[in-house]
């Protein structure tokens, strides 16, 4: 799965997510990626999020919308992603990751799996990582 979130100079946010699914999956199985609120969500009033990981778990907690809900409630972007991933892990034992950007440009990339490749670019500054803590 791959995904992107962005905030442009006009203050508009957007998200996109795309996937090939899981190897050997049941024919016709659709995971979280194309489902609004699960694989991605974007609202100028709060921000944008794109998710990856165990699709059925992400669907059960509508992870992208959950992240934005926490941002709407006043949490910082990193905290909103962390709280949402923790909730998913505790309630449905699912692992995954997410990227998010708020309407003010505060961004986060977090995951509970072994690894997730991510990169962020703001004001010509490129940040990236692969392993936990990077």
């Amino acid at each position, binding site marked *: 799965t791959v995904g992107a979130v962005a*905030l442009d100079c006009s203050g508009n946010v957007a998200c996109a997510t795309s996937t090939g699914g899981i190897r050997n999956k049941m024919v016709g199985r*659709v995971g979280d990626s194309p489902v609004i609120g699960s694989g991605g969500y974007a609202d100028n009033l709060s921000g944008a999020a794109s998710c990856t990981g165990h699709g059925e778990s992400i669907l059960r907690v509508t992870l992208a919308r959950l992240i934005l809900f926490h941002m709407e409630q006043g949490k910082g972007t990193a905290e909103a992603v962390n709280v949402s991933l923790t909730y998913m892990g505790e309630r449905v034992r699912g692992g995954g990751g997410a990227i998010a950007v708020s309407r003010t440009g505060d961004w986060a990339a977090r995951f509970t799996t072994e690894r997730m490749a991510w990169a962020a670019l703001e004001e010509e500054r490129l940040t990236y990582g692969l392993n936990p803590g990077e």
Partner: protein
Amino acid sequence: MSAVIVVHGGAWAIPDDLAQASVAGVKAAARRGFLAMKTGASALEAVELAVRTMEDDPVFDAGHGAVLNADGEVELDAIIMDGRTLAAGAVSCVRNIPNPVSLARAVMEKTDHVMLTDRGANRFAQSIGIQEVSPESLVTEQERREWEKNRKYSSGVKDLFNSQWGHD
């Protein structure tokens, strides 16, 4: 307001032999989306460009590099959403579209619907002239080998469970 883009290449147990290429891929995608915004593109255009970049990179499980389902077929899903209007477009179970995210954007902009699936999504793609390719061209040799290995493993496990020697 300063533009920001963040991209990911999937959360999973990325093996060491894919690690460097995965990081290079997400960096390239972030750069492409950010450069577009610097020259006037919207956030929507930037996320589409960034995701297309990763769909074109066979190191990622999307577009080129997609994994195979139980029947050995490609099934691709994608979504895109515009925070200005809450407009969204999505496709699922498409087989021969190298950039499903762009088809998802077309669903958002050219139909009254949020998601099209399977043959309906493909029929829509044909009607608007979206690029189609042979599904085989989206699959890497490495994925073919992994799928074959996985398939044999699954049948091996079933054989064990169905025999008198079955155990967990």
